[in-house]
């Protein structure tokens, strides 16, 4: 029965209400316009939140629309009713009108409190008894104000849009406190009257169990709390509005920490400590990152296990960020290992949490990406921080570049962080480029730069200079050296007052040059090109065979030419060719010291006498000299100056002839130039002289049935015979040389084998023509003398 009566009353009320409203309706076209206005407002609000967060033009329109709607609703009951009807018809859009509702409710509430407009004291949306007289407590506890619209409230993707503007009980309390503090605390008297109550309520909110406040709420409340505390402690400092009373950061932190200690909700504790960290980070004039780091570590220690993932990431980020700021300080920029490790560990931990979340919905992908980028390269503050900075500070440029590559891959051109990362990457690439050396100078003890062709002595000090292309800051640079068996590096120090020159004085001794652990034989080759009939074919073949066939070590290649025939003399790191000089003959072999610094290479010949010398060029039958661009005679060699040489091959005319002295058939030179060579053999360790007693085959001498010149055929034959020597037997230098020449081009060949001492006999090998039984042939004759 009661139900029937209640329904009847309700129907009558609706009918009456409808009737009353029908009496004074908004004209239809105006109603449509108003509804269109409401829809436009809704569309622009939704659109701006979803797609155009930073579109100021949209917000300008929205503000205009809001004002327009507000004015209509506030000034006309009919429009107000229409407004309420529209919202009730479109409940999905109710959240969109939250800000407008707040403004309207605020107006209604003030009007009600002022009793200026008792008609609106009971609006449809609030439903409160119009005759009830509100107390101050009521005003605090029951006043309603929806939260202001926040552009970043879409942070949690899984939060439904309709919840965005939903207020919690704690928030309602907070807004009430704010509004009443603003409206009722107008002087010191009202401060002292209501202030303690508000402080108590604030403390209750911040340290209670109601977790309905968000970070901004807590932040605002803390400021208000501090304002009241400061104003109550010193009423003279009171000013309006109360939340803008000045107090120091220290005071704030002190009060905030007290709330922190009393707070029971980890969430609020986190909010409070994050604000404290922020204050230290933003400390003016100089950020106090060490203090910020201290609180960030405290936050992690106290709260890490009790907070949500986003807050955990925030803690890790703040620790890493502040540690990064402390890793290296000017002017030394030395790395503090403690902060380095803290920073590295926390950025790594942050990434360990974030990377698996990339394809989850636990956090918005945009936010995850933002955090990952920040972990690598955070340009939101200057100087930038992140792993890139950490690696760059520790000069680990490859890792820094790898980190930048990740940032570049996650961002797009045009984005500040992308463009900055690209530029920074280029800069770092320049750092990891090897130091560019423009020149290396090798100076002898008199300070003169060693020129190509000079043959240096070991066991002396030399100065090495490296000149960089551009001034560099390094106090020293390393340059590498190598010889046949030795290698190492030298530390060159920067010269004072010279930003580009590095220098070191080094002693080149037998630990660098002259090592021969395998006791391999070494060879040296000289080739002189006196005329167009000459070429380098035989000496090149000799080098190739000696090196590859016999496994001998290259002891230098010397060349010279006349009549404009080009030679190959050059300071080439791989194939160096030295000019023929008298000193080169005396040295009879070199070992190269190879120096490398960056892209510059230098090669320096040091005297290291070979065991076998090959000479291709003119020979003088009158005095036994080797006639190249310089004349070299055996008498130029002092006793024991050729201590290492054992074999000399003279692919030149006549100089070994002893035909006159030994009365050998077929000879033609009366002066016996070979005597000087035999004499040299007696006063040195050179024992085998292989050459010619008359004309030697020319470099390009044709051989009739083949295109290979005679000199090359002889060279090939010689090495074949040397290789064929039975293992374990002494090299048969003379007979192999004679055998190699056993053809129509080599019948002038001869060889001298000098006895090991003055009492020993020497041997002279030569060919004679024979006609045994009328058959033309040649026989190798050996004459002892």
């Amino acid at each position: 029965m009661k139900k029937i009566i209640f329904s009847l009353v309700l129907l009558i009320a609706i009918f009456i209400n409808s009737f009353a409203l029908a009496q004074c309706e908004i004209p239809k076209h105006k109603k449509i316009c108003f509804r269109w206005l409401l829809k436009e407002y809704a569309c622009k609000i939704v659109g701006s939140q979803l797609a155009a967060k930073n579109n100021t033009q949209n917000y300008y329109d929205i503000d205009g629309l809001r004002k327009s709607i507000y004015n209509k609703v506030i000034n006309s009951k009919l429009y107000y009713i229409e407004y309420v009807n529209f919202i009730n018809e479109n409940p999905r859009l109710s959240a969109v009108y939250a800000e407008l509702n707040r403004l309207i409710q605020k107006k209604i509430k003030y009007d009600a409190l002022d009793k200026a407009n008792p008609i609106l004291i009971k609006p449809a949306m609030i439903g409160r008894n119009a005759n009830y007289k509100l107390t101050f407590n009521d005003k605090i506890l029951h006043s309603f104000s929806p939260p202001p619209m926040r552009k970043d409230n879409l942070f949690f993707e899984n939060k439904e849009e309709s919840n965005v503007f939903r207020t919690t009980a704690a928030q309602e309390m907070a807004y009430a406190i704010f509004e009443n503090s603003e409206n009722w605390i107008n002087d010191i008297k009202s401060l002292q009257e209501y202030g303690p109550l508000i402080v108590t309520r604030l403390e209750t909110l911040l340290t209670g169990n109601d977790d309905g406040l968000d970070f901004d709420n807590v932040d605002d409340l803390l400021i208000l709390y501090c304002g009241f505390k400061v104003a109550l402690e010193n009423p003279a400092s009171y000013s309006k509005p109360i939340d803008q009373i000045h107090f120091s950061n220290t005071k704030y932190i002190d009060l905030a920490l007290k709330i922190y200690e009393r707070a029971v909700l980890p969430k609020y504790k986190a909010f409070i400590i994050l604000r404290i960290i922020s204050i230290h980070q933003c400390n003016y004039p100089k950020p106090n990152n060490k203090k910020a780091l201290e609180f960030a570590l405290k936050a992690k220690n106290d709260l890490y296990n009790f907070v949500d993932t986003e807050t955990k990431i925030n803690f890790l980020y703040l620790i890493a960020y502040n540690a990064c700021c402390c890793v290296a300080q000017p002017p030394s920029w030395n790395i503090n290992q403690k902060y380095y490790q803290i920073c590295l560990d926390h950025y790594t931990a942050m990434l360990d949490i974030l990377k698996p979340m990339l394809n989850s919905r636990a956090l918005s992908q945009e936010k995850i990406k933002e955090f990952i980028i920040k972990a690598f390269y955070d340009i939101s503050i200057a100087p930038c921080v992140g792993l890139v900075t950490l690696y760059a500070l520790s000069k680990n440029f490859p890792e820094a570049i790898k980190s930048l590559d990740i940032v570049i891959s996650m961002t797009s051109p045009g984005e500040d962080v992308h463009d900055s990362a690209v530029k920074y990457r280029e800069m770092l690439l320049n750092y990891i480029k090897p130091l560019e050396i423009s020149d290396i100078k090798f100076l002898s003890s008199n300070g003169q730069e060693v020129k190509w062709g000079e043959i240096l002595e070991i066991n002396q000090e030399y100065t090495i200079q490296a000149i960089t292309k551009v001034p560099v800051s390094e106090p020293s640079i390393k340059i590498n050296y190598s010889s046949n068996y030795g290698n190492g590096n030298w530390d060159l120090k920067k010269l004072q007052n010279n930003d580009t020159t590095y220098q070191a004085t080094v002693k080149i001794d037998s630990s660098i040059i002259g090592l021969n652990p395998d006791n391999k034989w070494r060879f040296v080759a000289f080739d002189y090109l006196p005329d167009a009939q000459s070429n380098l074919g035989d000496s090149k073949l000799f080098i190739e065979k000696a090196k590859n066939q016999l496994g001998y070590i290259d002891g230098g290649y010397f060349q010279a030419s006349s009549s404009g025939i080009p030679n190959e003399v050059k300071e080439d790191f791989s194939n160096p060719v030295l000019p023929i000089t008298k000193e080169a003959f005396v040295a009879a072999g070199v070992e190269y010291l190879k120096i490398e610094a960056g892209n510059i290479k230098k090669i320096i010949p040091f005297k290291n006498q070979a065991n076998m010398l090959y000479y291709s060029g003119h020979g003088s039958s009158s005095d036994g000299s080797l006639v190249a661009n310089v004349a070299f005679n055996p008498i130029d060699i002092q006793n024991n100056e050729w201590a290492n040489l054992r074999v000399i091959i003279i692919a030149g005319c006549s100089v070994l002839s002893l035909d006159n002295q030994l009365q050998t058939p077929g000879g033609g030179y009366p002066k016996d130039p070979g005597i000087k060579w035999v004499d040299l053999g007696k006063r040195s360790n050179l024992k085998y002289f292989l050459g010619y007693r008359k004309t030697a085959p020319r470099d390009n001498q044709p051989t009739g049935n083949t295109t290979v010149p005679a000199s090359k055929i002889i060279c090939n034959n010689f090495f074949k015979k040397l290789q064929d020597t039975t293992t374990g037997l002494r090299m048969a230098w003379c007979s192999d040389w004679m055998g190699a020449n056993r053809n129509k081009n080599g019948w002038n060949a001869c060889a001298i084998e000098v006895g090991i001492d003055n009492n020993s006999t020497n041997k002279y090998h030569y060919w004679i023509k024979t006609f045994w039984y009328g058959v033309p042939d040649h026989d190798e004759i050996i004459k002892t003398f």
Partner: protein
Amino acid sequence: MKKIILITFLVCFMFVNNSFANTIEVELNYGLLPELKYDPNTIKEIKILSDEYVKTIKERDNFDSVLYYKLNSFIKNNKSSLNSLSALYMIIGMCLLDETDEFYLLNGEKLIDYLINNYSKHIQGKLAIIMKATLLEKREMNLEAIQLLEKNYEVILSIENDSSFQPFLDELNLKEPDNKYMMAWYYYYLANIFSKLKDKNNAVINYNKVIKQYPQTNFAKEAKEKIK
């Protein structure tokens, strides 16, 4: 332009033709009778030719076409004379000279084989074995040369006792005294080849044979130097 090409062609043709003109065809088939006889009427002529031959091989290193034509003519005119074998021997000798073309060597080899195969009982056929060994050695076929010499040991051993050996040496004007010690040459030559082959042991064995068995010869003297 055409004229230039024609002239160039002609010059080239003449040059090529000229180079061919330097090489003469060595006759390989003289149609000598199987049974040759001693012919005293040709001795004088063959001695003149042999003097010229000895002079040629001492003084020059290439094929003497003038002498060849004389020898060739001699053989053609004396197809039944033993002295034609000596003339043939001299033609072969010229083919083995240093500066001769490979063409002559090839023809010389064919004539050597002709002598060995057809007149092995004659002194010229026996000495052709030496020629063959020399030819092989020239071609660096040292092992083949040794095999040939060892295979024909008895033949070469018989040369010294061959009644026609000394008349042959006289006929060819080969006056060196060591010529009569065929086996001294044989061992010395074998030793040289062994030496070339780096077979020191066999080389020394053969040099020592020369030294011990033919100490009076120049071969022994050279052998001593070589094994010092």
